[in-house]
């Protein structure tokens, strides 16, 4: 009884204080209701019909948004600029991809029920031990969380205990993802090498090409984004979050007050990696492929740009940044593909120079710049 009231009051307080979050959660709720309706409930010739292509595209953006959210936790709130955050996303994606590969069964090109196509092609005789268990969804789902989490835990344990911070930490995270990319490119690793894992057929028995499956995946992406947002917001509003920000702003002070700084960083980093892994696992069935390119440092850097553009340490800013930039990317790469990277670079420079707090900061600044509006707002709150 006591406990439930504790959580409901916390939740209500949290939402009241967090306008951006309230907007975000409402938008997600609307998407979760209307996108399935407009895709499955209307005919193709209906003007309101949302095509499955669009649903999948939106689902992809949601996965990126979830990834950006996880980076915002470590970078925005704790100042840990991870330039290899995409690695956790890719690992989560590979874990899901391995399950989807096993689901193909004997429907591959070689019709071998025991081995995935690329292993047959490499003349392998039996399944490597680390593929065991991926026939089961529950096992794969566990690995989606465990593998990125364990890697982040070990990496973080070593890095934070040795007090590696700032640029040095960024460089090793970058090296981490680069090393993983090179490793996954090798055929001998047994993850499909250059081509990665693809040609998926179905998930939990549902055909991946069907509209219903696509819409469900979209729905789950939105749901998990909402849940992870709520969890992150709760943590950042709790004393835990204040300690995290304190560590970002004055690490020594936090240490001399008696906080075990490395433990805080470690748990936050691990949590962020787990969220990134979940994002990757939702991403792979929707786009239908995972390859070592996902580990490329460029991806991780792009991810940093999303968060910077959206606004650090706001959570909803990261989500918005990921959405906006990926929409722009889709648009640009279909019209002027060669300009995209320049546009992205220019955007990053502009944001760094003129909008250090990103778009979320712009909104906030406008709010404080207009005192009458602010006054009427506080009047409302008082009433």
């Amino acid at each position, binding site marked *: 009884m006591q406990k439930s009231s504790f959580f409901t009051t916390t939740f209500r307080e949290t939402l009241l204080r967090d306008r951006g979050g309230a907007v975000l959660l409402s938008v997600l709720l609307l998407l979760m209701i209307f996108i399935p309706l407009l895709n499955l409930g209307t005919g193709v010739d209906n003007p309101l019909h949302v095509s499955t292509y669009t649903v999948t595209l939106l689902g992809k953006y949601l996965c990126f948004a979830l990834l950006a959210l996880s980076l915002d936790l470590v970078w925005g709130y704790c100042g840990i600029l991870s330039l290899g955050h995409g690695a956790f996303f890719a690992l989560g994606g590979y874990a899901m991809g391995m399950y989807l590969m096993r689901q193909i069964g004997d429907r591959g090109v070689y019709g071998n029920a025991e081995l995935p196509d690329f292993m047959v092609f490499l003349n392998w005789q039996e399944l490597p031990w680390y593929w065991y268990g991926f026939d089961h969804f529950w096992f794969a789902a566990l690995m989606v969380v465990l593998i990125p989490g364990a890697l982040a835990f070990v990496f973080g344990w070593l890095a934070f205990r040795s007090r590696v911070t700032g640029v040095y930490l960024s460089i090793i995270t970058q090296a981490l993802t680069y090393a993983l990319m090179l490793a996954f490119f090798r055929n001998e690793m047994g993850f499909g090498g250059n081509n990665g894992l693809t040609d998926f057929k179905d998930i939990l028995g549902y055909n991946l090409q069907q509209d219903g499956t696509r819409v469900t995946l979209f729905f789950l992406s939105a749901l998990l984004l909402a849940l992870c947002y709520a969890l992150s917001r709760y943590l950042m509003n*709790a*004393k*835990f979050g204040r*300690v995290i920000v304190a560590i970002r*702003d004055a690490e*020594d002070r*936090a240490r*001399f*007050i*008696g906080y075990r700084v490395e433990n805080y960083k470690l748990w936050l980093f691990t949590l962020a990696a787990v969220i990134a892994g979940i994002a990757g696992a939702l991403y792979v069935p929707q786009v239908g492929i995972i390859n070592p390119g996902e580990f490329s440092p460029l991806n991780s850097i792009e991810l940093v740009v999303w968060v910077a553009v959206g606004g650090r340490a706001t959570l909803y800013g990261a989500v918005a940044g990921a959405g906006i930039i990926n929409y722009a990317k889709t648009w640009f790469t279909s019209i002027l593909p060669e300009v995209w990277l320049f546009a992205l670079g220019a955007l990053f420079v502009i944001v760094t120079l003129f909008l250090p707090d990103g778009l979320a900061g712009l909104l906030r600044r406008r709010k404080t710049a207009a005192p009458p509006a602010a006054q009427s707002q506080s009047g409302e709150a008082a009433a």
Partner: protein
Amino acid sequence: MNNLRQTWQQLQQGMRRDRVFDFIAENRMPFRGQGHMALPGVVDVSHGTLLYLENVSVSFDGFRALNNLTLYIDDGELRCIIGPNGAGKTTMMDVITGKTRPDSGNAFFGQTLDLTRMSETDIANAGIGRKFQKPTVFPRHSAFENLELALQADRRPWHTMRHRLTPTQQLQIEETLHTIGLLAERDRPAALLSHGQKQWLEIGMLLVQNPRLLLVDEPVAGMTHQEMEQTAQLLTHLAGRHSVVVVEHDMDFVRSIARRVTVLHEGSVLAEGTMDEVQNNPRVVEVYLGE
């Protein structure tokens, strides 16, 4: 001759540590009668001394910041430490708080806690609080939140995820805000406070942390005369319940609070005593007024 003096010094220190004759004092023996055990993590001040620094030496690239420094702080004492620039005052604090490891020598908190083998966090949690020379508060947090973070509580991540302030704690923070005169600035980000207010906020953070020993590095730097008086009052008020070590340059301020003063010079103790004794010590005069 030199050897003899060293032996004598060592003997003196041994007496000072009061350990040599422990075997006689029956009730102090851990395994006899109503004596007490040496409990891990508990500060043992049964001999009245809270902090032991013995023959501590620290060198940085050949520069001897601390040179055989020996210093004792009693439980509940207010001690001022003065000394010219480079005398090793801040290095001494670094050694006590675990930021710097001594090349040689002992640093004990109570009789059982070896500070040279504890991390900064362990030392802080054992009950040593520190105010830095440059005021360091958490700039983005409000004054209230700064105190909340410093408030004595379970510091582990899992606990802070679910922690809520109890009414008692809330009251304690409000009272401390009142004590340090920042009640009106309760919800302002600490970055917007004036220099003096930041100093006070940092002292307030030490108060709610409720440490056994407070190390205060230049508390009145940048304060007005009135603020200085208030600070003096606050620090004298604290002594007794806590031990306070103040490092300060401002002689008037030191005079206004000091009961015992230690003068550091070139990394070791030059003189110790009341303010008057110290000021009339010819060696101190020589060092301060110079060649």
